[in-house]
């Protein structure tokens, strides 16, 4: 454990790694500021650029992007009433009201402080969870791994989609797509439509990921011709207001603790991200707040909104690093990055690559703190970014996505996969299917099949192996419980 930590710290002391973290933080902030884009899109576009980096530098880069976009989104929420990311949806209520009262500097400082502290608490919980997760992963064999994937998919399908049937359909389709190409166990070419030059190797993760998360957003953003926002005079910020706001954050310890707990718990639930924790924590704080200005320019509201969404990121990382079940879309892209750099993600990650876990921990921490500091320094400039017409930004993103998709393997057809998955991702979102179960099904398909076949091999073909192991049985029962929960809930509501 400490050897891994030492490796991560040693890397962090190198100038080029510090530079890459700063770059990642700036990219994340800019993506957060631009409505429609967020950490997921920024990470998806940045993913192929990590190909020339060593593994640790690449993960520092992606982790810093992951944790910095949320504060970027709060800048536009506070200054121009447009949440930069869905995770800043409730920030506008109090943040923009404070700006209209001439307290933009105070609002930004509260947001920056709450974001940084919330993010740090999230990461602290992640660190605290490492020994427990390490112990748990030691109990995992192939049957447990398969049942864990099953539980993860059922949970994500229900939690993200809110409609377990549609969620399971997209997860199942994603998993089936991952099976295209040669079987990892038997080596048989499957579902490759006779393509021996391309599909024999399956659909590649990186082009598929950047298509679904990056290109689908390009199509959506391309619907609007002009700029996202017409911004008038941006409020000026003063150092005195910033200091006052930073100190004021500490006057709401109860709200802060409550919101970060909500954020971390929501983060740990696979597939649910900052947009849920932000609303949930804000609504909870509204129940307990005695501030008559809550919702109309209250510091407490800002603390609730911004501490929860940043705490979620640390929570998201727990199932991702401990079990290989992505806690959010950003963590799914991070998983893609780990795979790209030859790190197999699953319950074995903490056994074999503890240094990667620490790199993610330090990367998230650095991104959190740096984004708050940088964000405060350049707020006026950042708030002007949404005025740039999308027609100028999008062709650059498209070309970066295409070059990135190609560069990973220097295969032209990977660009075709990106186009197809981008279009598919757009229509999934447009017609009410969540792309997250789809992607997670795709990412976990291979390892699920491997674990499934290994289990049957151990038991000489008997499927009872999944029920004979206590942990595997527990995970199976948990999957069934999550699956039938909506049925029971509906019955209870109906009878009531």
């Amino acid at each position: 454990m400490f050897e891994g930590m030492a490796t991560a710290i040693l890397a962090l002391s190198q100038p080029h790694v510090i530079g890459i973290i700063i770059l990642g933080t700036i990219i994340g902030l800019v993506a957060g500021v631009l409505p429609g884009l967020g950490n997921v899109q920024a990470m998806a576009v940045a993913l192929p650029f990590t190909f020339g980096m060593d593994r640790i530098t690449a993960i520092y880069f992606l982790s810093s992007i992951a944790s910095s976009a949320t504060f970027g989104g709060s800048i536009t929420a506070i200054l121009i009433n447009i949440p930069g990311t869905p995770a800043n949806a409730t920030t506008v209520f109090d943040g923009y009201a404070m700006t209209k009262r001439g307290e933009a500097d105070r609002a930004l400082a509260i947001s920056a402080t709450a974001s940084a502290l919330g993010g740090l608490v999230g990461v602290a919980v992640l660190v605290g969870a490492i020994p427990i997760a390490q112990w748990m992963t030691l109990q995992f064999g192939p049957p447990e791994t398969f049942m864990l994937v099953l539980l993860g998919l059922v949970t994500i399908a229900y939690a993200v989609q809110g409609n377990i049937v549609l969620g399971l359909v997209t997860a199942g389709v994603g998993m089936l797509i991952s099976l295209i190409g040669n079987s990892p166990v038997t080596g048989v070419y499957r579902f490759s439509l006779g393509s021996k030059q391309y599909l024999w190797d399956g659909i590649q993760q990186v082009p598929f990921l950047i298509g679904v998360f990056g290109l689908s957003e390009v199509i959506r953003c391309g619907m609007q011709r002009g700029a996202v926002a017409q911004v008038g005079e941006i409020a000026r910020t003063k150092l005195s207001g910033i200091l006052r706001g930073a100190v004021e954050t500490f006057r709401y310890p109860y709200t802060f603790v409550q919101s970060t707990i909500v954020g971390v718990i929501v983060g740990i639930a696979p597939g649910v991200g900052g947009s849920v924790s932000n609303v949930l924590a804000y609504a909870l704080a509204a129940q307990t707040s005695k501030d008559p200005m809550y919702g109309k320019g209250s510091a407490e509201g800002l603390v609730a909104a911004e501490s929860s969404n940043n705490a979620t990121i640390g929570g998201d990382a727990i199932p991702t690093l401990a079990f290989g079940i992505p806690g959010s879309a950003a963590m799914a892209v991070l998983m893609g990055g780990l795979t790209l750099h030859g790190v197999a993600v699953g319950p074995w990650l903490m056994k074999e690559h503890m240094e990667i876990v620490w790199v993610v921990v330090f990367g998230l921490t650095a991104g959190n703190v740096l984004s708050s500091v940088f964000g405060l320094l350049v707020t006026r400039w950042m708030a002007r970014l949404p005025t740039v017409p999308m027609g100028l930004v999008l062709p650059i993103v498209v070309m970066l996505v295409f070059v990135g998709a190609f560069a990973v393997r220097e295969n032209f057809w990977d660009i075709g996969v990106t186009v197809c998955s981008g279009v598919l991702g757009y229509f999934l979102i447009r017609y009410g299917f969540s792309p997250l179960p789809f992607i997670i099904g795709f990412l976990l398909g291979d390892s699920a099949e491997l674990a499934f076949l290994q289990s049957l091999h151990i038991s000489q073909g008997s499927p009872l192996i999944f029920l004979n192991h206590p942990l595997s049985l527990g995970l199976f029962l948990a999957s069934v419980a999550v699956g039938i929960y909506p049925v029971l809930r509906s019955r209870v509501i109906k009878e009531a």
Partner: protein
Amino acid sequence: MGRMLEGRAILTILMLVFELYVVVVGFGYGPNSRIFPVGIGIPTLVLTIVALVAVWRPGLLRSSDARLGGSSIAVELPADEERENVSYPTVRVLRMIGWLVLSFVGIALVGFRVTVPIYILLFARLEGRANWLVCTLIALSCWAFIIGYFELFMQTQMFQGIFFGATLPLF
């Protein structure tokens, strides 16, 4: 609302066709190669049929709702999706997809070096409505970055395009 459901039905049917393909073709493989795809494919197929019925028979859906668990089966239309459907006509979506296909074809024919600046220039001019100078500057800067980073720094062999001798083997 109608268009939304129609679109969802088409998408669901496409998924159904893919699942049928996997299941039917899957049965042709050996036991170890087929057990997982077929094992995942069949339940997914059943759920997709349920989702399809839910699109076409909202009345039936409500009754199956009560049977299967209410909110979990209900086809709820998120407000933002509806807004998106109203705001952006299909022709606009097709236009954006057309831009992507155009760039894909451009890269296939003449490679990255030629396509990158021309695509950015045209897109920024026609969609972004920027003046020629701004478009040219953006196109050249992006071209220099992509060539500089990928071709010179990372030593990536950028695709040259069919017109310049590249081949595209698929089958």
